[in-house]
């Protein structure tokens, strides 16, 4: 307890940092309830912009598209990423080249990945649409799921796999009853992470969605709307997305207690 004043100063700094982080967000949340709809003046509490948002067909369709892309790409990348992580861990003696290759999509700039995927799809003459967005999202989500599951595998005791075999289980039974349950928290956390990454991903979706309106995702829709100024509907949309993300984040942290490195 050397210094009460130092401690107070530290609290102040902490408060400022949090204010810097969260004031813009709370302004946005506040404005979503502003009756007048203008960011310049508060004219009373209202939910009318929420109503307006749910009447906007374009936004609803974009939200639906984002949900589809998020769920499908998260599901595919969770299955593949988990299998990849287990496979790599079993053959980890083969060296780090494989590892670098797996994690490359995490560090390659999104814009590069986006251009690469677009060129790839046009080279193969694939018609662009929601399915190409899903495929593109699987590419980078795979790396994230794999990273989360591998972190868990680092502390995985492989002798339980042998113990299961020794007690009479087949390989498939061992996978189902021993390996997957032990890895489950990491797998679910990886899936949730993939979903959230996919939901707010813009650049790659923008490049691989094609020109038709039917395959516009939510971030693309917002980008399109914001070019004509920040409308109150966007504030509402952003508020809903924040709420959704917080719930997912809390869920993921709860499930993955002790799963990620450093937790």
């Amino acid at each position, binding site marked *: 307890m050397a210094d009460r004043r130092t401690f107070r100063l530290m609290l102040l700094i902490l408060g400022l940092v949090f204010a810097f982080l969260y004031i813009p967000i709370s302004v946005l949340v506040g404005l979503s309830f502003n009756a007048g709809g203008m960011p310049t003046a508060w004219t009373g509490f209202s939910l009318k912009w929420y109503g307006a948002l749910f009447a906007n067909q374009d936004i609803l369709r974009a939200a639906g598209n984002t949900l589809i892309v998020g769920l499908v790409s998260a599901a595919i990348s969770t299955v593949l990423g988990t299998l990849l992580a287990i496979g790599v861990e079993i053959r980890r003696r083969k060296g780090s080249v494989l590892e670098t290759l797996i994690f490359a999509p995490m560090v390659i700039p999104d814009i590069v990945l986006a251009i690469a995927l677009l060129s790839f799809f046009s080279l193969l003459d694939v018609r662009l649409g929601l399915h190409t967005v899903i495929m593109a999202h699987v590419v980078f989500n795979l790396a994230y799921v794999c990273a989360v599951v591998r972190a868990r595998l680092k502390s995985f*005791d492989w*002798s*339980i796999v*042998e*113990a*299961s*075999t*020794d*007690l*009479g*289980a*087949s390989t498939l*039974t061992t996978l189902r*009853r*021993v390996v997957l*349950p*032990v890895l489950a928290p990491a797998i679910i956390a990886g899936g949730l992470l993939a979903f959230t990454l996919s939901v707010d991903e813009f650049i790659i979706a923008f490049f691989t969605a094609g020109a038709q309106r039917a395959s516009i995702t939510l971030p693309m829709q917002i980008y399109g709307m914001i070019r004509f100024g920040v409308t109150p509907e966007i504030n509402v949309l952003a508020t809903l997305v924040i709420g959704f993300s917080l719930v997912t984040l809390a869920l993921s942290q709860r499930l993955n207690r002790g799963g990620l490195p450093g937790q």
Partner: protein
Amino acid sequence: MTTLLSLRHVEKHFGHVRAVNGVSLDIRQNEFFALLGASGSGKTTLLRMLAGFEALSGGQILLNGKDISHVPPNHRPVNLMFQSYALFPHMSVAQNIAYGLEMEKLPRTEIRQRVDEILATIQLSALASRKPEQLSGGQRQRVALARALVKRPQLLLLDEPLGALDKKLRGEMQLELKRIQHQFGITFIIVTHDQEEALVMADRIAILQHGELLQCAPPREVYEHPANRFAAEFIGVMNVIPVARDGAKLTAAEGSLIRADIPDGMGGDLVAAVRPERLRLDAHACENRLSGRILATAYHGLDLQVHIETPAMPKPLICRVTADAAEARSFRTGDVLSLGWSRADTRIFAA
């Protein structure tokens, strides 16, 4: 006694390394058998081959006369208790134990009955619903044992089962394991690097070195009549005295005569060996004698170890003096001490 398990010239090569080199053994029904060796002796590899986790590079493993060399581990009537215990962390104690029985697709009621029975045997009924992380080391060890035993295998393999326990608990569990083995009437093969553990528990001990079988015999014979110098020095403490041979006459380096029975056909350089507890203070009454200066003494509670420097040996001669004898006279560093031992307690090995 019928033979349960036969190893015929079993080989395991990892690249150029021969981890197990032509081991042949017969293990009897209901035997408590110990594979003893230093690390790298191939004892764990041999055990893993019996469990089915390592393929044989040569030879055969027969169980009840049937070749099981190529039977996968999940189809062998053999269970392994892992050194790390390998309990399933997401299952309770009862679920861990039931797992092997569920794999046999037994009816639920029978599974529950057998799990309850074995929980009572290992005195863990009260902890049936705990997770492994909520158990102490000794409790985990017993759950691992129960999980393997509940399947009633014909052969139970135990990989350093007491290695993770503290010394006092280890002593209790040695007797407990013997009791359980007797109660269940299952053949146990235990791998250990702890020679004392092997002596206490096993009916027979196999000593392995560099993947080869050196000796296979009951504990007393292994201790009293080691097959060679390595086995003699590996088990317990052995004083080794280099000797020069002239016909049937053996002399130590400083000139004293060593009387001993030389095994037939033994040639080349020889050593005489005697256990520390066979050395006696009344040297004048003994057939063999050595004297030297006391280098150090080490108090062990039930006896006193006296290290004596003698010109006859490169290493100090070690003698164990019982507690009463140690009280009867003083052993000060630097004192000259004469020790004797009988011809019958002297072993002769190739150097």
